[in-house]
């Protein structure tokens, strides 16, 4: 469950969010749309606890992600750009993220590679992959640890 209540955020003197309120209930899929500069990225960063709101409330699964970063272990984040280490293999990219996130499980990693049809690329460097395959790697990374909340940016991009 994600709850935003009357959230305001100003960055660099520009008011990005003015009284944003939304509720995402468990088991529901929501699309968050807006033109360029509307504040989508800022909203997602607030939900992840990377930014602090000037006022208002942000809660994910009943916790403030800024004050309780542990809650982020239950969030899967697929950023707008793939944000992969280009000189690392697919396996190493996923392994590193899983280890740092504290959810490393070799079997789960293999399952995810299989699910996203990445097994054959697991030892290849990310820089050698097509953009679609790189996107699938980023998607697999978002699913590591079986998140309860998934935040996929640019979900319209089909690999």
């Amino acid at each position, binding site marked *: 469950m994600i709850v935003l209540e009357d959230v305001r955020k100003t*960055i*660099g003197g520009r008011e990005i969010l003015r009284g944003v309120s939304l509720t995402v209930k468990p088991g529901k899929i929501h699309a968050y749309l807006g033109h360029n500069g509307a504040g989508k990225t800022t909203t997602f*960063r607030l939900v*992840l*606890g*990377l*930014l*602090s709101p000037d006022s208002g409330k942000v809660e994910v699964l009943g916790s403030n992600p*800024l*004050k309780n*970063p*542990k*809650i*982020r*272990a239950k*969030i899967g*984040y697929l*950023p707008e*750009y793939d*944000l*992969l*280490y*280009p*000189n690392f293999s697919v396996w190493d990219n996923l*392994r*590193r*993220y899983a*280890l*740092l*996130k*504290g959810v*490393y499980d070799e079997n789960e990693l293999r399952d995810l590679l299989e699910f996203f049809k990445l097994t054959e690329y697991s030892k290849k460097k990310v820089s050698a992959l097509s953009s679609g395959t790189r996107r699938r790697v980023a998607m697999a990374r978002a699913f590591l640890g079986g998140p309860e909340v998934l935040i996929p940016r640019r979900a319209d991009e089909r690999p």
Partner: protein
Amino acid sequence: MKLTWAQLREEVKYTAKQIGFNLIWIPWTTAVIYWLSGWTPVSSETIVALSSISLAIMFSLVFSGAIFREKLLGIHELLLSLPFSPTHLLLLKTLAGFVIEVTGILLGSLIGLLLADYSGIHIPLTVMVSGLLISTPLLFTFTFFVILTTLLFSSTWFNAVKIAIGFVAFFVPLYVPRYFGNVLSLKLALMLSLVISVGISIPSLLIIKSLGDHLAERTLLV
């Protein structure tokens, strides 16, 4: 989330890959300084004392490259979304750098001692251990400071300042003893190292304390 061995091991492995050539440069520079210390007119203690401070400052700067690269690729945002605080991330990266630095200096010192011994110059093992002790607090605090400031103020002028500090640190052990003789004993160097470490920790802690919940935001929006 507590810092785990698995995280630290992964970060050491990652950092070692990212710093590349510097992985050899750290022990190599240390070895050469130890080896050459026997050839100078001043005591090996002075060379080791001065070098331990200079090397700690120089080697700490090496890690800003790996941090800068992650920022450039945007991966820093992804790391901030992990289930721990930005301070935890800073500590993890500092510890990884620290492990590499201490291992490099230890390895370099041992090779340097062997080379010196082979050349007929005896440097006591206690001098080497003292050198490592002098470096240790500086390595940790300066690496933390470098990583923190790189995340907060990455810019051309800031990189220029870091390069300038690196150059000064490089030339100090080469030229200071030549013109000023035995200026620094091991004891004095250890005190100096502790004073600099405390001095550098104060702004680091003040920055973290003053930014509070905005630390991640500030590193993200730079």
